[in-house]
């Protein structure tokens, strides 16, 4: 029976067929764009990246107050006093410019740690999942044990032992190492799980029966098809790494002064909390909202890249 055209038009269903075929990544991008919180998160992070890159230049040209200059006449002033929009800390240093410069450390840790974790987790996960058997068993028992070590404690212990002096990016090296050492396990397990399920798929069987070499199989089929969840896991690793660095700084074992970091600023402000409570509030909120922004991006990416996890 033919459906009357009028009924179809009234049904309110969008019958328009897209003119072009949409690929997986374009589709994911469209889904990501539709998620308002994820876009907000991406906006906040882009803003932070601009701030981190621009702040040394702004300080150089005198637009921003020098974050290292101690103004003895303006110690612990409230926001807005003496040309300090966010006030000054207990040494009379401008909180706004320290906050802006501090974003460098947080972003560097958050993003670079993922570049260390990616090859480690990928190699171990792929090896374990692809070859299976005894290698898999050994590697997985190893990750099991590694998983049992509480990560904050491990990072604290490592940093208490290995420390380098020098500019902040040199001091960061052991911190990178410690955070990467505790965070690769999650990625390795994820990659292994992905490989285990993908390797049973028909297209992999087809590729294998048509004579693909193992390396080609891994690079052409296993890797691209598990890339979505890997990206999501790495994105969620960013706030995790930023959090760990902030805790280290807060406890005083992270990056040493004078380079400002947000965790250290919370700690400094905490010591003078009754005299000038806002010196705690600004860095604390900076940490909180940065982590929140990365979490929003992670949630958005998960919904966009992993259709099975979609709500």
């Amino acid at each position, binding site marked *: 029976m033919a459906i009357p055209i009028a009924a179809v038009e009234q049904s309110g269903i969008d019958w328009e067929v897209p003119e072009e075929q949409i690929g997986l990544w374009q589709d994911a991008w469209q889904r990501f764009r539709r998620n308002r919180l994820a876009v907000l998160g991406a906006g906040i992070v882009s803003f932070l990246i601009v701030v981190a890159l621009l702040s040394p230049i702004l300080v150089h040209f005198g637009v921003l107050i020098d974050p290292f200059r101690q103004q003895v006449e303006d110690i612990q002033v409230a926001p807005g006093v003496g040309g300090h929009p966010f006030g000054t800390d207990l040494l009379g240093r401008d909180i706004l410019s320290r906050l802006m410069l501090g974003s460098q450390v947080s972003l560097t840790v958050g993003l670079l740690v993922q570049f260390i974790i990616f090859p480690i987790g990928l190699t171990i996960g792929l090896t374990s999942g692809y070859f299976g058997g005894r290698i898999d068993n050994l590697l997985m028992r190893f990750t099991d044990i590694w998983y049992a070590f509480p990560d904050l404690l491990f990072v604290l212990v490592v940093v208490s032992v290995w420390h380098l002096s020098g500019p902040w990016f040199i001091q960061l090296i052991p911190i990178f190492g410690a955070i990467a050492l505790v965070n690769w396990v999650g990625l390795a397990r994820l990659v292994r799980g992905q490989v285990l399920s993908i390797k049973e798929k028909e297209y992999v069987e087809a590729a294998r029966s048509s004579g693909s070499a193992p390396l080609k199989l891994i690079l052409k089929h296993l890797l691209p098809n598990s890339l979505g969840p890997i990206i999501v896991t790495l994105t969620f690793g960013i706030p995790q790494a930023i959090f760990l660095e902030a805790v280290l700084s807060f406890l005083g074992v992270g990056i040493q002064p004078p380079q400002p970091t947000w965790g250290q600023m919370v700690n400094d402000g905490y010591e003078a909390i009754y005299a000038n409570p806002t010196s705690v509030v600004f860095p604390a909120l900076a940490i909180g909202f940065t982590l929140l922004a990365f*979490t929003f991006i992670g949630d958005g990416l998960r919904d966009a890249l992993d259709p099975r996890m979609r709500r």
Partner: protein
Amino acid sequence: MAVIAGRPRRDALLPRRLAAITDSRLGSLGVYVVRRILWMIPIVFFVIVITFVLMHSASGSPWDKEGGRQLSQVVVDNLNKKYGLDKPIYVQFLLYVWNAVHFDFGLSYQYEGKSVTTLIAEGAPYTMTLGVLAFSLIVPVGITLGVIAALRQNTRVDYATMGFATFGASFPNFVIGSLMVVVFSVFAYKATGGNFFLPASGFGLDDHLIMPVVTLALLPTVFTARLTRASTLETIRQDYIRTAWAKGLPERLVVIRHILKNSLIPVVTTLGPTFAFLVTGSVIVETVFSVPGIGRAFVTAVTSRDYPMILGTTILFSVVIAAANLIVDILYVFIDPRVRLT
């Protein structure tokens, strides 16, 4: 987790009488428990090895002073002898493990003449008080929030709860703690002229406990709430729940007897991570609120490079977490008869 399917039966090679025992569910449960307990040994051993190796890979000796005058060689030799650092490293390691098995974790470098065991015992009551109180907050509050959010899915109540959960999960506990001090100690003091405020440091069995416990409990609470919500949503869609509604049971009975009984089973698994949160959280919360517990002792040890103390507390924390995970896994098998043991 106990649910791993598709492996060959482990007892295939056991003698017949043993095989008979392991055939019954209770028997296989016993085997499972024993194996899980034995599995703790390599974990704890590994933690000792890693921490021990790390401690000894530190550059310089623990007696180096930061700048200024150094100790004379004779003093250093005597100190090394006192703390057993003159022996080869493998002897030190074996001695350490041997003593650790007997709950002797050596002498603290930082506090003259005090053993690590004494220091831990001194801090334990404070840490345990905070932990127990936080735990008694996490479970009821987290489950209640999660169930309410699930039963009112896609309403304002649900959005508010989940929004709160997202914030609570993103803000680190030292940030939450500091912000709470600003609001409830500093601003409250100024606003009420000193009539009402919460104490920001120290320990006491009174309002001193409020902020540390809330800070410690927040992250595990929202974690539990999220999981309870997800699990309850899944249960609500089951056929037997529809049947329960259809046969006209009152809402209270459907929710408590049919929904909760099933949806709370997966929530038990969060208790393991919750313990890990409480342990690592105590490190931060005790520092923020100046509570003289084990967590703060650990931070002091880390900042002053008191290696025996770091080693002792790390081992203790790992054992507590491993034991909590073990208990949770065993509990899970008892609660949910569908779980397959491997």
